[in-house]
Every structure is written in structure tokens, then in C-alpha cells.
């Protein structure tokens, strides 16, 4: 383990009821890095994220964040340490307005010099400014996705986790998100990304993990991944 390691999961085992989904999974994310978690549908990417952020109890293994064990903590405590997630399926609050989504949880959990403020978030997603007074469930699918990303950013997290965050977004917006992530990375934001646009992720991310049936079957840098197209065929279905 590196002293720059921000998040480390070690020997993670978890599942739903009788069915086990993760089988001794190891991964670590270093501060300032962008890391991806890749794999086919149903391989356990979202489950891994849930176990990391306290949404699903660990059956075995441990999770450390900034060096301290967090696998005993509740999800809200982990979140307050500076982990923010854009979950699968957006999960916007139907009874909060767009603006309320962005101020209710706003915080400064990292020490960024240029923290995300309401204004900056609106600047990132002008659509949201137009819809500021709308309720979460009055938004289009893509608008909800933008809102979920903005909501996560509003906490100024130390670790940002995006689970299929570009899902349902128009290609232009998707591209904007990538560029935004690149800027964030430049500003030192640590990020864990799950997404299906592997090609695009190569440019953005530093390292990649490939997940197959609850185990990490490959790990390496973008260059290594780019070089080994057989991997793509075998594990990513491309």
C-alpha cells in the first residue's frame, strides 16, 4: 500500500441475501488519480461501489479511506468523510427542487482552492439553472443525470464515484462531462468511474480494473489496456 492511497478495499466479499456477488476483491485508489472499474453487465461493479460507500454490509474484507478503516461505518458517516456518489439510476429526490438538491448537502469536504458553488454548478449545467424551481421528478432523464452529478459535486468530495454517470446523456453533454472530469483531475480530484465508453476512458483515466464475476481479473494502466484488445473482447464484450 502506497502512502498516497486514498481508498483501499481488500478481500471484499458481499452479496444480496443468499447470493454472493463479490468474491475477495482488492482494489486501491491513490489520491489525485482517476480509476475505472470495467466489466460486463452484472459483474458486480455497482455492488463494489455500494460496499465501498457503506450501502451494503461486507461479509469479509476491509475498506480503508485515508488510512482509516471505514467498513464498520454507516453510509452517512462515510459520506461525511468526503465520499460522494452518482449512483446508478440517478436517485434524484422527487420532493426537492433542483436548487434544493444543490444546497441541501453542499459542503467543503476537500481542500480544493476552487470549490464547487451553486453558481459554478449552474455554469457547468446551464440546463439546471433553467429548471432551478422544478422538482426532481419533473426533469427529463438526462436532466436528472446532470442533477445527480451536480449534487455529488456540491459536497466537494475527496473521492468522487460515478456509476454510469453519462447514461442517457446527449453526446454533447457526455463530452462535456468528460472534459469536466479532466479538469477536475487536473485540479487533483480523486475519481472512481464506472462507464461503458471505454475508448473515451482511456484518455481520461490513469488506471483500470476489470471485474469478472465478482473478482478483479485484470488491472493496469491506460496504455496497457489500450494495447491489449483481446481483453476488451473477452471481458468487456466490445
Amino acid at each position, binding site marked *: 500500500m502506497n502512502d498516497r492511497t486514498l481508498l483501499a478495499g481488500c478481500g471484499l466479499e458481499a452479496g444480496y441475501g443468499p447470493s454472493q456477488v463479490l468474491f475477495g476483491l482488492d482494489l486501491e485508489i491513490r489520491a489525485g488519480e482517476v480509476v475505472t472499474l470495467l466489466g460486463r453487465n452484472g459483474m458486480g461493479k455497482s455492488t463494489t461501489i455500494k460496499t465501498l460507500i457503506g450501502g451494503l454490509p461486507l461479509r469479509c474484507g476491509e475498506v480503508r479511506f485515508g488510512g482509516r478503516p471505514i467498513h464498520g461505518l454507516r*453510509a452517512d458517516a462515510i*459520506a461525511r468523510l468526503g465520499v460522494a456518489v452518482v449512483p446508478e439510476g440517478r*436517485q434524484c429526490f*422527487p*420532493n426537492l427542487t433542483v436548487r434544493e438538491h444543490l444546497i*441541501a*448537502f453542499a459542503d467543503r469536504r476537500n481542500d480544493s482552492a476552487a470549490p464547487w458553488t451553486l453558481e459554478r454548478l449552474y455554469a457547468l449545467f446551464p440546463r439546471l439553472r433553467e429548471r432551478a424551481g422544478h422538482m426532481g421528478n419533473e426533469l427529463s432523464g438526462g436532466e436528472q443525470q446532470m442533477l445527480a452529478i451536480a449534487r455529488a459535486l456540491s459536497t466537494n468530495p475527496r473521492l468522487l464515484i460515478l456509476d454510469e454517470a453519462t447514461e442517457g446523456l446527449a453526446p454533447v453533454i457526455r463530452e462535456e462531462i468528460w472534459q469536466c472530469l479532466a479538469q477536475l483531475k487536473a485540479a487533483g480530484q480523486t475519481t472512481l468511474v464506472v462507464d461503458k465508453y471505454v475508448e473515451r476512458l482511456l484518455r481520461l483515466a490513469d488506471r483500470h480494473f476489470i471485474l469478472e464475476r465478482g473478482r478483479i481479473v485484470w488491472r493496469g494502466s491506460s496504455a496497457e489496456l489500450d494495447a491489449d484488445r483481446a481483453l476488451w473482447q473477452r471481458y468487456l464484450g466490445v
Partner: protein
Amino acid sequence: MDSIFLIEQLLNGVGYGLMLFLLAAGLTLVFGIMDTMNLAHGSLYMAGAYIAARVHEASASFTAAVAAAVAVTVLAALALEWAIVRRLYARDHLAQVIATFGIILIADDAVKALWGPSPVMAAMPAALSGPVQLLPGLPYPAYRLLLLGAGLLVAAGLYLLVNHTRLGMRVRAGASNRTMASYMGVRVGQVFSFVFVLGAALAAFAGALMGPISAVQIGMGEAILIPALVVIVIGGIGSVRGAFIAALLVGVVDTAGRAFLPPLLRTMLPPALAADLGPALAGIAMYLLMAAVLILKPAGLFPARA
């Protein structure tokens, strides 16, 4: 019918409306905002009334009585929340109805064992027991002015808390999606406990204030439950503003029905029919209003979520 009478009845309607809002305020918070169906609201209201009545009698200070009622009820609510209610947040409304109905059954028997089956005396603070002259020829009970003020104050406070504080937003977030709220760092459990206890405090406050103008007895909580729910539902579940407007609407409609309908019908219909119909219609005015609103707007006047 002179204008003073009209003004007086309008005032009565508004006053009754504010009283209804006061009764419904705690429930608005717990049921409307936190989405937890709490029939035991009535029991907390009863507890507030009983404690206030007893403390007032013993201490002769109405302020102390109200404070004690709120304080003791808050303690009881903490225990209730810890033992039972917190296990209900994640359940569906039906389970909440059944469990809190069970609490009512237990609470009623407990109060009976503690204070007997007879109504107890809740005296009015002497200073407020008479009328004040609002306009020439229009006396108005001083104590009702206090209720009116309390209703307004609670309404404003609740509105600000729910709609304009981060706490209010977090409560709403937790109510609609507990998991996601906790992913955002909200201590949902604590926030909910706090809100439940606040709701209980409001219930006790209402009970303590209502005691001097109503019967403090077992079952008094159940009697206010339906009007309180009617107000919340007409307003649109989850909307403080809706509940407030609905309370005034119900108050005015109900009062108008009682004040003007029977005389009006007497001028239009044969006396026997008018005598039967007038009070009957006035009696169901509240329900007619609710049915009419829901037929036109199936989610109440101001649905909190589209």
C-alpha cells in the same frame, strides 16, 4: 344580517382554521414531510393536554403548564421513537397505521389508569378568560386571540423550517429516498428522531393550548385526528403551505356552514326539511369539501411532488 356579524363569523372561521392548523401542525411534519403515518399524534396531543391541565392546577402558572406539557411529552416521544417509531419509518403506510393504532389503544388505557376515566379540569389563565373588544359590538375571546397567534406562529415557523432550511430539505430527502440521503451524508436516523420529537412537541403544545377551551378526556386525541388528516390531505400531503390554506378553508367553510346555512335554508325550504337538512349539511361540510377538492385535484391543492 349585519356586517359585524359577518365579520365576526369570518373571524371565527379563520380562528377555527388556525386552531385546526395548530392541531395538524405536528402531523404535517411527521406525516406530510417525513411520510410516516402517525395516528399516535392524537395520543401525544392528549398527553399534552392532560399534563398541562395538571401542572396548571398545581402551579397556577399557565406558562409553566405549557412548558411542562411540551417537556414531558418530548421525553415520552423520545422513548416512543426509540422503542417503536424508528422501526416504522421504512415500513409502508399501512403498517404505520396499524402500529400507531396499537399505540393509541395502549395510551388510552394508560391515561385511564393514571388519571381516571373522567375529564379533568383545564382552567383558562385568568388574564385571558374574558373577551376583548375588537370593534364596537364585536367582543372576541381573549384566549382565542392567543390561539390565533400561536397558530400563525407555528405556521410561519414550520414553513420556514421545512422549506427554507437545510434541515427541512434533508428531512424531505430522507423521507423520499432514505438510502440516497444517507449517501449524501445525512444522518437520517437522527434527523428523523429529531423531527418526530418536534412533531410530538407541537402536538403537546396544541393539546396544552386547546385544553382550556375543550374537554380534556380520553379519546380527545382521536377526535382531532380526522380533522387534522382532512386538513393535510386537502392541502396536499407534504406541503406546509397547503395545510395552512386548507386549514383556513375548512375553518371558514365549516363555520359558514354552521352560521349561515341553517338560516338560509329556512328562508328557502319548508321548515321541517330545512331543519333536517341544514344541520346535516353543516355537519358534513368538511367532508364535502375534501371530496370536492380530491375529485378536482386528486393529490390535494398543493401537491408537494408532481
